């Protein structure tokens, strides 16, 4: 799979001239105050918002998911893992919804294996909000079985209403080559290409 991509530093991301955007994982601004909150205030986030509003695929991975939440592009909150430990392990995931820009190439209700590596990945929202997210199909992936972070209802990836903006705690890029331990993550990027084409 070949995709023309550019790695752009946030201060240099000034124009929405792309077909898709991915905000990667990391520790932007040292996770100070709350993971993702300071990065969400970067001018780059406004460019991401323009792409999202235009219906382009926008993916937030791990810290990227936290940033999308703090920018108000996705609902809910990501709190510290209930074990208080940084959890770093390969997880079995269930694909709950394949109507999103990053899961349309998966079979609905299929499983996938990808690693997680984070300290603040416990998705939280009040019960009525969780019910609504599930009913509207905005829960995109859950953990299948084990839930090492205490995330509500095993939720580990959600989308916005239109399905073009997705936030996920697992790292698909770390599951996209057999030398890394698995290739299930490739379908996330194949989905993005498919969605951008339509």
């Amino acid at each position, binding site marked *: 799979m070949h995709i023309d991509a550019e790695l752009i530093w946030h201060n240099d991301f000034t124009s929405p001239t792309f077909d898709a955007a991915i905000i990667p994982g990391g520790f932007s601004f040292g996770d100070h105050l709350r993971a993702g909150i300071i990065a969400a205030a970067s001018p780059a986030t406004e460019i991401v918002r323009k792409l999202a509003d235009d219906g382009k695929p926008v993916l937030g991975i791990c810290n990227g998911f936290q940033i999308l939440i703090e920018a108000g592009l996705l609902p809910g909150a990501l709190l510290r893992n209930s074990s208080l430990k940084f959890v770093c392990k390969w997880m079995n995931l269930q694909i709950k919804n394949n109507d999103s820009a990053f899961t349309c190439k998966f079979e609905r209700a299929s499983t996938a294996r990808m690693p997680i590596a984070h300290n603040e990945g416990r998705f939280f929202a009040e019960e009525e*909000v969780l019910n609504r997210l599930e009913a509207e199909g905005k829960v995109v992936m859950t953990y299948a079985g084990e839930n090492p972070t205490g995330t509500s209802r095993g939720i580990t990836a959600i989308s916005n209403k239109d399905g073009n903006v997705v936030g996920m705690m697992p790292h698909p890029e770390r599951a996209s080559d057999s030398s890394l331990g698995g290739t299930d993550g490739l379908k996330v990027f194949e989905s993005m290409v498919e969605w951008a084409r339509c």
Partner: protein
Amino acid sequence: MNQTFPIEIIISNKPQARDPEGETIARDLMHKAGYDCVKDVRTGKLLLAKIEARDEEEAKSKVLAMCNDLRLYNPIAHTITIRARN
């Protein structure tokens, strides 16, 4: 004439969200040391801001507006308490 007021901003999890750090402190530190009078511990983050304003009320209301504007707390998961430190 403006003065400077020390204003405390305390950010903590809403009661509906578990606070495992508070639970750990209560269970593994306090109860283990015999302080069974401790029934519950919730943690929070404290920001102490020195605010220039006409009076204390104006200082607190400026801080509240800023907290909402900047999402200093996530309204889905957190509560904030704003008070003047005396």
